[in-house]
C-alpha cells in the first residue's frame, strides 16, 4: 500500500504541478511553542498555497519525523556555503536521475528555447515571513543586475545572448517572463546549478541597503561608516550573499537558515519555518530541526568523523581514510558508504598545446604523439597499485551513466600497447635514441617531458612514478615538477609548462542541455590550451586564436550547440565534440570514478547507500534531498 502511494505521489511530483495536500498539515513540534505564543502563524498558513509534495521514488525512501540536530564538520568558516549546496532549494533543480524539475517554482515553460515563463507559488514566503513574489525578481533585474555601481560589468554573462540582455516582464505577482532574441541554453542549467544564478533577491530586505532607495542619505552614510565598509556597494554585497549564507539577517528560501554571524568555530542553522516542501503525511520539511557545523582543521576531520563527531560527512574524507573509518564504525555508531565521483577523470594529463618552446609545441600538437603517450600508460597497473583495483580507467570523457556515453569515448587509445606506441613515435621521426634509450627530438635534445603538479597530494606523484616506468619503455623520460597551485597555474599560462596533471572534466554526467564548454577552448583555466581559451573568452582581445583544425572545429561545435533550436541538435553537437576528444586526446585521462567515503549516523534515514558525490551536477548531497533526511529514534516510527 505504502509503495503504491509513493508511486502515485512520485507521479504527482514529477508533473511539477504540486497538487493538493494529501493530509492536514502537522505542526512541527519544535515550532509549536512559537506558534502557541503567537510569534509564528500555524503551519497551514506558513506553507505556500501550492506546497511541493515530496516523495522520492527511491528504494528504501520513506517519510520521516521531525526533530534532531545534524552535525557536520567543515575546515573553514567559509565552508558554511556548503549548506547552500546541500540544501539545494533552487528555482528548478536536478532530481536523482539528473532530470530538471521545478522546485521553488510551481512550474515553468519554455518556447523555442528563447522565451522562459516562470510561475511562482502563491503564498510562498521568505524565511522571515515576507511574501516571495515577482517583485523579488524585478528587484534583482532592475536594481542589481542593471545597476551601474553594483554590477559594473552589466548582467551576468549567462543572461546575455550575443551580448544582448533579455526582455524581462512581470505580468503579475506570480509570473516572470524572460525573452531573448535567440535561444539561451544556459538559463535553466544556471538556475539549477549548485552555485546557481540567483535571479531573485529578498527585495524587502535589500531595499534598505540600496542607495537608490535611501531617503535619508545622511543616515545611510552613517550606517556604512558604522559597518566599517568601504562604500555602500561593498556593504550591499557583504550583506547580500545568497550563496555564502554568511549574513543571518538575510532572508532565504533554503531549508535551513544560518543563525550565527561569523567569525565562529560553531555555526548553527535552524529550520526555515516557511519552507515550501511538505511530505505526504502533511509534515513540513525539512525534518531535521537544526544543522550545526563545527570548524576543525581539515587533517583532523577524518579522525573526528571516526570518533562519531559528525552525523553526515563526506567533505574532507578521502578514499585512503576508508579503512580507518570502517574500523571505528561500530564503536562510533555510524555506517560508511562509498559514493562515486562523477568527474570525467579523477586524474588526467594536460599536454600544453600553447607551450612556449616551438619544437615541443609542434610535437604536442601532433595527435599521434598524444595517442602514443596514452597507449604507453599502463592504466590497469595504476588501478591495482594505487586504487586497489576499485576505480575505472580510460579517457577523460563522460561517464557510463550519462545518456551521451559511448564505450568508444572511454576506451579508444587506452589499451596498454607499447609496440603500437613505439611505431607511432617512430612514424613522427623520433627514431633516434641516446645511450639511455631515450628518443631524441629533431634538434638533438632528448625527449624529456616535465609534468607539473600542484604539489597537493602524493597520489599524483605515485601515479606519475608508474607512468614514468612505462613511458621509459617507449623511449620517453618523465620528470615531475611539484610546486604550489598559484605557481603551477602561472607556469601553464606562461607556456613554461609542457604538461600538467589535474582532474578531468568537472561534469562527467552531462545531458545534451548541459553546456559543453569544457570540451572546447572557452576560458583561460583550461590547461591544455590556456591561450586559445583566453582568446575565445575575451572575444579575441587576449591570447592566441586556435590554429589547430580540430580545436577550431570544437569552437564551432560549441557555437552550434548554443544556437541549436532543439535537444536533438544539442545532442548532435555534444556527440561530435566527444568524438573529436576521443580521437584527438587533447587531455589524456588516466583513472575515473574514484570512491568517496560517506559517513552516515546509524539513526539517520533516507541517505542512499550508493550515490554520486559530485559538485555539478549533484550538489554533493543536494540531489538526494537532505531536507528529507531524518533521525529514527528507534521506535521504527515515521510512516504514521
Amino acid at each position, binding site marked *: 500500500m505504502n509503495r503504491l502511494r509513493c508511486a502515485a505521489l512520485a507521479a504527482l511530483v514529477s508533473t511539477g504541478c504540486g497538487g493538493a495536500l494529501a493530509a492536514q498539515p502537522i505542526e512541527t513540534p519544535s515550532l509549536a511553542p512559537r506558534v502557541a505564543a503567537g510569534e509564528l502563524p500555524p503551519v497551514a498558513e506558513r506553507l505556500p498555497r501550492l506546497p511541493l509534495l515530496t516523495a522520492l521514488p527511491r528504494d528504501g525512501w520513506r517519510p520521516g519525523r521531525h526533530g534532531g540536530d545534524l*552535525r557536520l564538520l567543515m575546515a*573553514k*568558516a*567559509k565552508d558554511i556555503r556548503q549548506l547552500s549546496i546541500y540544501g539545494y532549494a533552487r528555482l528548478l533543480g536536478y532530481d536523482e536521475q539528473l532530470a530538471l524539475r521545478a522546485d521553488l517554482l510551481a512550474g515553468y515553460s519554455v518556447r523555442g528555447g528563447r522565451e522562459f515563463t516562470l510561475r511562482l507559488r502563491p503564498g510562498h514566503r521568505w524565511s522571515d515571513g515576507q511574501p516571495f513574489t515577482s517583485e523579488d525578481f524585478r528587484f534583482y533585474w532592475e536594481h542589481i543586475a542593471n545597476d551601474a555601481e553594483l554590477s*559594473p*560589468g552589466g548582467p*551576468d*554573462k549567462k543572461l546575455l545572448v550575443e551580448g544582448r540582455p533579455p526582455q524581462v516582464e512581470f505580468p503579475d505577482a506570480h509570473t516572470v517572463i524572460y525573452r531573448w532574441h535567440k535561444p539561451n541554453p544556459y538559463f535553466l542549467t544556471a538556475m539549477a546549478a549548485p*552555485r546557481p544564478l540567483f535571479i531573485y533577491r529578498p527585495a524587502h530586505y535589500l531595499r534598505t541597503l540600496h542607495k537608490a532607495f535611501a531617503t535619508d542619505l545622511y543616515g545611510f552614510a552613517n550606517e556604512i561608516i558604522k559597518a*566599517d565598509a*568601504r562604500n555602500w*556597494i*561593498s556593504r550591499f554585497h*557583504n550583506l547580500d550573499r545568497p550563496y555564502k549564507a*554568511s549574513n543571518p539577517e538575510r532572508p532565504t528560501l533554503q531549508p535551513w537558515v544560518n543563525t*550565527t554571524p*561569523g*567569525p*565562529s*568555530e*560553531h555555526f*548553527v542553522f535552524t529550520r526555515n519555518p516557511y519552507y515550501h516542501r511538505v511530505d505526504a503525511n502533511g509534515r513540513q520539511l525539512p525534518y531535521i530541526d537544526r544543522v*550545526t557545523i*563545527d*570548524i*576543525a*582543521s581539515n*587533517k*583532523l576531520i577524518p*579522525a*573526528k568523523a571516526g*570518533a562519531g*563527531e559528525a552525523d553526515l560527512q563526506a567533505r574532507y574524507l578521502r578514499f585512503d581514510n576508508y579503512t580507518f573509518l570502517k574500523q571505528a564504525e561500530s*564503536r562510533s555508531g555510524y555506517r560508511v558508504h562509498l559514493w562515486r565521483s562523477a568527474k570525467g577523470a579523477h586524474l588526467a594529463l594536460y599536454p600544453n598545446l600553447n607551450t612556449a618552446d616551438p619544437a615541443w609545441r609542434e610535437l604536442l600538437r601532433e595527435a599521434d604523439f598524444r595517442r602514443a603517450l596514452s597507449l604507453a600508460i599502463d592504466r590497469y597497473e595504476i588501478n591495482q597499485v594505487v586504487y586497489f583495483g576499485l576505480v575505472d580507467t580510460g579517457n577523460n570523457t563522460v561517464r557510463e551513466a550519462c545518456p551521451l556515453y559511448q564505450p568508444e569515448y572511454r576506451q579508444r587509445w587506452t589499451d596498454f600497447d607499447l609496440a603500437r606506441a613505439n611505431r607511432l613515435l617512430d612514424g613522427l621521426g623520433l627514431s633516434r635514441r641516446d645511450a639511455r634509450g631515450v628518443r631524441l627530438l629533431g634538434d638533438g635534445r632528448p625527449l624529456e617531458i616535465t609534468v607539473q603538479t600542484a604539489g597537493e597530494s602524493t597520489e599524483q606523484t605515485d601515479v606519475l612514478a608508474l607512468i614514468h616506468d612505462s613511458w621509459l619503455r617507449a623511449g620517453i623520460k618523465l620528470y615531475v615538477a611539484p610546486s*604550489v*597551485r*598559484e*605557481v603551477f*597555474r*602561472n607556469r601553464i599560462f606562461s607556456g613554461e609548462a609542457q604538461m600538467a596533471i589535474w582532474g578531468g572534466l*568537472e561534469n562527467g554526467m552531462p545531458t545534451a542541455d548541459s553546456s559543453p564548454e569544457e570540451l572546447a577552448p572557452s*576560458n*583561460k*583555466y583550461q590547461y591544455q590550451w590556456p591561450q586559445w581559451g583566453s582568446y575565445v*573568452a575575451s572575444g579575441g582581445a587576449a591570447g592566441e586564436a586556435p590554429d589547430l583544425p580540430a580545436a577550431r572545429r570544437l569552437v564551432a561545435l560549441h557555437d552550434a550547440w548554443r544556437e541549436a533550436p532543439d535537444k536533438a541538435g544539442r545532442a548532435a553537437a555534444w556527440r561530435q565534440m566527444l568524438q573529436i576528444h576521443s580521437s584527438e586526446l587533447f587531455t589524456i585521462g588516466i583513472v575515473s570514478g574514484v570512491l568517496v567515503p560517506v559517513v552516515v549516523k546509524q539513526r539517520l534515514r533516507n541517505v542512499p547507500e550508493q550515490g554520486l558525490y*559530485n*559538485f*555539478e551536477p549533484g550538489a554533493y548531497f543536494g540531489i538526494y534531498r537532505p531536507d528529507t533526511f531524518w533521525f529514527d529514534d528507534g521506535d521504527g516510527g515515521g510512516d504514521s
Partner: protein
Amino acid sequence: MLHYTLRRLLAMIPTLLVISALVFAIIQAPPGDYLESYIAELQAAGETVDEEKIAFLRHEYGLDLPLHEQYWVWLSGMLQGDFGYSFEHNLPVSEIIGDRLLLTVALSIATILFTWAVAFPIGIYSATHQYSWGDYGLTLLGFIGLATPNFLLALVMLYFANVWFGISIGGLVDPALIDAPWSWEKIRSVLAHLWIPVIVIGTAGTAAMIRRLRANLLDELQKQYVITARAKGLPPGKLMRKYPLRMAMNFFVADIGNLLPQVISGAEIVAVVLSLPTTGPMLLGALQSQDMYLAGAFLMFLALLTVLGVLVSDLLLAALDPRIRLGGGAGR
C-alpha cells in the same frame, strides 16, 4: 635609568618601521595575490570563475594599486588603529583577532606554568645531583620530550584521549558548548581539553629549560660563597633558595622577551594539528590564502610584542642585576 628607557623606546620606532616593510615584503613575496588563491580554490571545488567579477574584486580590494601605494594604505591605516580588512572572512581584522586572544593566552599561560612546574624541580635536582642516575634519567626524559615530533605526539594523544576518556577530538571545548556563555560546565570542558596541548607544547620546552637551569646552577654551585655558606652550616634547602638559585635566575628574566610573542603565536603547528581556536592556525591560514591584511596584522603584533618583550626583560635585568651596564659598550 630614565634616559636609558627613553632611548630604548625611541629606538623602537625605526625598528618597527623596518619590520613593517619586511612583513609587507614577505607577504607579497609569493606569486599572485589573495584573488589568485581564491580562483584556485573555486576551481578545486569545481566552481566557475568569472573574470569580470575577479577584476571587479581586485579593484574593490585595492589589489590593483602599485605595491608602494598598497604599503602606504596599510601603514597609514595601522597608525590610525585600522588594521584593514580580511578578504577571507569579510570582516575587519580587529573583529577577527579579538575572539581568539583569550583562549590563546589561557593556553600559553597554562603551558608556561606546566613547563616551569616540570622543569624547575628537575633542573635543581639535576644540578645538585650531577652525574647521578637521577640526573641522567630525568634529563633523558626531558630530551625524549624534545625529540618527539610534537604533531605526532598530539595525534596519538588525541586518539587515545578520545577512545579512553571520550574527549572530543581537537578544539579547546566541546562543540556543543562553543557558543554557550561561560559557565562551570564550559570551564570544566576547557580544562578537559586543555591538558593535551599543554603537555604536547610543554614537553618540547622542558628539556631546554632543564638544561639551562642546570648549567646556570652548576656555575654558581662551584663558587666560593656557596662553599662558605655551606661551611658555616646553612641548611642546604635555605642555602639553595637564598643564594645560587637567585643568581641562576638571570636567564629566566632574559627569557621573558621570548615569552610574549609565544603567547600570541601559541605554537602554530600543534595548534593546527589539534585544531585549537587560537591565533596560530588563523595566521597560517591567512598566509596560505594571502589574506594580506590579516597576516600582516598578526605579524606586526608578533613583532611589536617581541620588541616590547625584549624591552621589558632588559629593563628588568637592569633593575635586578647591578652588574649590567646601561651605557652600551662603554665598558668593553
